[in-house]
């Protein structure tokens, strides 16, 4: 594995995903392996060709027996060179993707399968036993010793605090925030996997329940079930097999020191996301002006605006006006979240970053159907964890 003086460029050559939404009768392993089968099929590869399995955890509210990657390999009936599970909140699946790309780049293996899946919407509605309750207490502790004691079990109220600051500081109106989900639904209408495809209006958004003021229900991504899988191979392997795809050309990553609320810092500025973006672009030898299409995290509308601004795509406070002008639409100057984003495509956090990678893969291959950005050749994926506490940014470029 080490000692080689050359790195192999990792190339995504296959992608699969389930419908995003509700799958009450299925398990995360079912959804992840359905996605993998589709991804392998699109690449024309057999399961036996997979040399490594890269996972993230199966969710937040359900306990998971250890050594899950080996059980996935057993279900697939494959012996491997690498079994990996990576966890860091919302970035988990992107960091599993990074781990796969690193192993491919180092020449440890040539064909890696990255799988992310989550299927636990039921856990909040069905009766809980003592073990489920314990799991909720465990999730409460994720918010740490300063916020956890206040009973926090969701990121939503914390994102409400930064949304309130954003609206206060920039004078963003409720209508301006509500505009984003309206726009994202227009994109999701062309995405057959998306959970929320029906058109809505600003009035619909503002009439929806105030789940954690100032956040309305339709400004929050749904907590979805879903699975996604990406097949990553070396450039040499892709050439030998004649496979087209999306090559990883740049990676950037930054994590602030705060867990959820960055006490004492501006709740509207997330400079580490900008630094991760700068790093990824510099590694790829690209600039923001080179980007044809972006998939940005955004689990809540105001936070998505703040992320656009943190990435240096718009000046602070300017994202709402740019979105309202159509700049981020599929036919705009800077198309962002043609998938519908988290808010309209749906958000199974443990699969979300791979859904973002998959959207860029489809855009670069020209297989994005009605949401195709014309001529897309260079794309960006940005995923985050906590309350935008850290971000991974990947630059993907068309490979053929």
């Amino acid at each position, binding site marked *: 594995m080490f000692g080689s003086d050359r790195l192999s460029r990792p190339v995504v050559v296959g992608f699969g995903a389930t419908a995003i939404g509700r799958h009450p009768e299925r398990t995360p392993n079912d959804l992840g392996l359905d996605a993998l089968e589709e991804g392998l099929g699109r690449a024309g590869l057999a399961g036996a060709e997979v040399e490594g399995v890269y996972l993230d955890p199966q969710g937040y509210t359900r306990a998971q027996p250890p050594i899950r990657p080996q059980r996935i390999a057993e279900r697939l009936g494959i012996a491997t060179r690498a079994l990996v599970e990576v966890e860091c909140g919302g970035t988990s699946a992107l960091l599993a993707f990074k781990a796969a790309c690193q192993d491919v780049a180092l020449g440890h293996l040539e064909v890696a399968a990255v799988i992310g899946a989550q299927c636990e919407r039921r856990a*909040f509605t069905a009766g809980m036993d*003592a073990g489920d*309750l*314990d799991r*909720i*207490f*465990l999730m*409460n*502790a994720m918010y*740490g*010793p*300063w*916020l*956890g*004691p*206040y*009973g*926090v*079990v*969701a990121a*939503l*109220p914390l994102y*409400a*605090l*930064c949304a*309130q*600051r954003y609206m*206060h500081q920039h004078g963003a109106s409720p209508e301006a925030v509500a505009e984003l989900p309206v726009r994202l639904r227009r994109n999701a209408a062309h995405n057959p996997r998306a959970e929320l495809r029906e058109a809505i209006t600003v009035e619909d958004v503002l009439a929806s329940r105030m*789940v*954690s*003021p*100032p*956040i309305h229900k339709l400004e929050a991504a749904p907590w979805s079930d879903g699975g996604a899988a990406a097949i990553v191979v070396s450039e040499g392997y892709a050439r030998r097999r004649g496979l087209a795809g999306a090559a990883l050309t740049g990676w950037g990553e930054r994590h602030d*020191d705060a867990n959820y*609320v960055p*006490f*004492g810092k501006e*709740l509207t500025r997330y400079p580490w996301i900008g630094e991760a973006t700068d790093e990824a672009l510099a590694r790829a030898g690209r600039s923001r002006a080179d980007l044809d299409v972006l998939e940005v995290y955004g689990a809540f509308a105001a936070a998505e605006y703040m992320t656009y601004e943190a990435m240096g795509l718009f000046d602070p406070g300017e994202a709402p006006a740019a979105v309202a002008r159509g700049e981020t639409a599929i036919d705009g100057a800077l198309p962002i979240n043609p998938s519908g984003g988290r808010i309209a495509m749906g958000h199974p956090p443990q699969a979300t970053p791979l859904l973002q990678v998959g959207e860029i893969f489809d855009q670069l291959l020209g297989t994005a159907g009605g949401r195709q950005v014309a001529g897309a050749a260079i794309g960006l994926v940005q995923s985050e964890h906590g309350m935008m506490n850290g971000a991974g940014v990947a630059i993907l470029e068309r490979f053929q």
Partner: protein
Amino acid sequence: MSGSPPAPSPAKYLLRELDVAGHEFYRRLAEGRPATTRCESCARTGFPPRLRCSGCGGRQSWVELPGQGRLYAFTTQETALRFRAPAVLALAELGEVVVPGIALAAYSELRIGQEVSVEPRPEPETGLTLLAFRPAAA
């Protein structure tokens, strides 16, 4: 296995997340003296409290937090283990630091920048004393 195991305690994982500075923060709060740490070298006061300065690595000493401050942000939680709506989860600026707590007023009566006074309040489920902010009389 004979008999049922006892129900899990809501506080068991939270308490495991506390380091020495965290235990000291909640101990002082339980005594009615909210405090945080200040660096003896670079004089920076921060929240959360730390054993070592994150800026210069210097030794920290404990300083009491001001009893008055201003509301920085606030919301309500629809889903939570404790302090569900209509309780108001808030951040307040107390001197140099921003801290979390519960605002002792209805959401609709609060505004950013409002003056608040600090009231430590015991919370029975975890056994910890927490911060609460009472708006100054209008």
